[in-house]
């Protein structure tokens, strides 16, 4: 008895000749691929069209000035840019060390059962809507910071802390993947040379995982700089430039994203103020774009250098 031959693959309508089937499938796939590019291009075009008058109608000195009073015709973006930077830098300073250490703990040290508890919890943290974290910051974090001496508790630091916790799951899970990808042979040979667990992690595993760790940090920053709702709630919304120093983390500030979100609803379409809000979008876009290309260049050169072994 012979078994019936099994039919493999997807069955396509037979009324089309095979050449046509190929053609149609190829076109569908092409369309899927090209649509992403098309949409990015459209977004970019739209952003430029609506935002360009900002850069044409307002002199650059005024635009990068320090006074943001749109109702009185002062469109200085500096307070917003500085605000975004302060919050983001604060968030990164918290999230990166915490995230890397957590990833090292999860990947290298924690016993299996702890890993099985911690990893789903971290994923839940990633799933909390940012506005809910914003609530939490408003209701519980701000009063604590207020008691520490800030008049309202709504400061850049409050925002940084929330953003750090929003970026943490990204930083942790990508760093952990990077550590996991390091071959076991490296660890074995380090241990076999008499290195301790910690020496093995610091001197072999982390350098070998470096490019992945850089990506983790960059994506974490990207998550923080683009976040809107939470920072809108808890950073105090004061468009002024804090004095440079450690103290600037404990001043109320206002970010670019929060400005767009707060003012877009109240501005008349077609006015300069409306255009400037899009202009802010362009600036933000430029910043994240620069960040991303910096990251990919850094990662690229890291890989090249690792191939040459000059880590």
């Amino acid at each position, binding site marked *: 008895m012979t078994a019936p031959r099994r039919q493999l693959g997807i069955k396509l309508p037979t009324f089309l000749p095979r050449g046509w089937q190929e053609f149609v499938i190829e076109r569908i796939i092409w369309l899927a691929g090209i649509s992403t590019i098309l949409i990015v291009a459209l977004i970019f075009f739209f952003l430029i069209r609506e935002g360009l008058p900002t850069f044409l109608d307002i002199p650059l000195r005024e635009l990068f000035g320090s006074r943001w009073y749109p109702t009185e015709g002062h469109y200085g973006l500096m307070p917003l840019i500085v605000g975004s930077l302060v919050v983001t830098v604060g968030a990164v300073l918290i999230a990166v060390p915490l995230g890397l250490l957590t990833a090292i703990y999860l990947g290298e040290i924690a016993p299996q059962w702890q890993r099985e508890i911690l990893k789903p919890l971290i994923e839940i943290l990633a799933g909390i809507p940012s506005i809910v974290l914003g609530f939490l910051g408003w209701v519980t974090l701000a009063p604590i910071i207020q008691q520490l001496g800030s008049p309202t508790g709504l400061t850049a630091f409050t925002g940084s802390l929330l953003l750090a916790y929003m970026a943490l799951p990204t930083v942790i899970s990508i760093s952990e993947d990077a550590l996991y990808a390091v071959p076991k042979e490296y660890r074995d040979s380090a241990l076999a040379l*008499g290195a301790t667990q910690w020496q093995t992690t610091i001197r072999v595993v982390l350098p070998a995982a470096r490019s992945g760790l850089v990506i983790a940090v960059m994506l974490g920053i990207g998550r923080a700089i683009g976040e809107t709702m939470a920072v809108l709630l808890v950073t105090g919304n004061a468009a002024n430039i804090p004095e440079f120093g450690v103290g600037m983390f404990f001043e109320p500030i206002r970010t670019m994203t929060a400005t767009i979100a707060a003012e877009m609803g109240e501005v008349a379409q077609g006015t300069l103020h409306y255009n400037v809000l899009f202009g802010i979008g362009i600036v933000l876009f430029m910043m994240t774009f620069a960040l991303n290309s910096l990251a990919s260049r850094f990662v690229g050169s890291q890989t090249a250098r690792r191939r040459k*072994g000059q880590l």
Partner: protein
Amino acid sequence: MANKIEVRDFSFFYDDFQALHGLNVPIKQHQITALIGPSGCGKSTFLRCLNRMNDTIKNTRAEGEVLLDGKNIYDLDVDVTELRQRVGMVFQRPNPFPQSIYDNVAFGPRVLGMDKNEPLDEIVRQSLMGSGMWDEVRHRLKDSALELNPGQQQRLCIARAIAVKPEVILMDEPCSALDPVATLHVEELMRQLASEYTIVVVTHNMQQAARASHWTGFFWLGRLVEFSETGTLFSSPQDGLTEAYITGRRG
């Protein structure tokens, strides 16, 4: 001839599975001991017990004694990192770190703080000379170890192992990923190293055991079937199973 390592009634378990059954193995000082046997017979497991590399695998358990210079390495007061400095290891696949040739060799001395007593450059030079590759790489110490060919990489791993001045070197099928020429290179190197170090080598290759070792142990299903001088074991094996294996009728 003194026993560098004396294994007594040694058994090893992965969870409930007993991988090694009451082994008694003498490892002679400054000699090459080869362990042969079919895949899964426990010879690699046994090798990794000699520097406690199996400690890194969860749910494993050892019974019996492994005496290194008369001291049981499974005693509670043994410092495992110090043990591994004394008993080095070379792995099956050449596995240099993705770092420079120099940094690979310097790794062990650095983590053990040996560079406080002796200049690091000198340790690196001597180790690379010891593995017979100083002249090949002396002008490219800053190049990546990954640019070397597999045979060179494996000899670099040997240099890395001897840089920490071990007493015993364990080699887990060190030539199985190498071509015949590179294999002969490494075997030659093993014979040279035997004057200073005690070497235990696991191999699938019986010619290699016959060529390169002084003593040979034959493993079968977690038991040591036969152990004697290499010439004797290959020319007049005492056990029928050994004979069947080395003549290729079992395995």
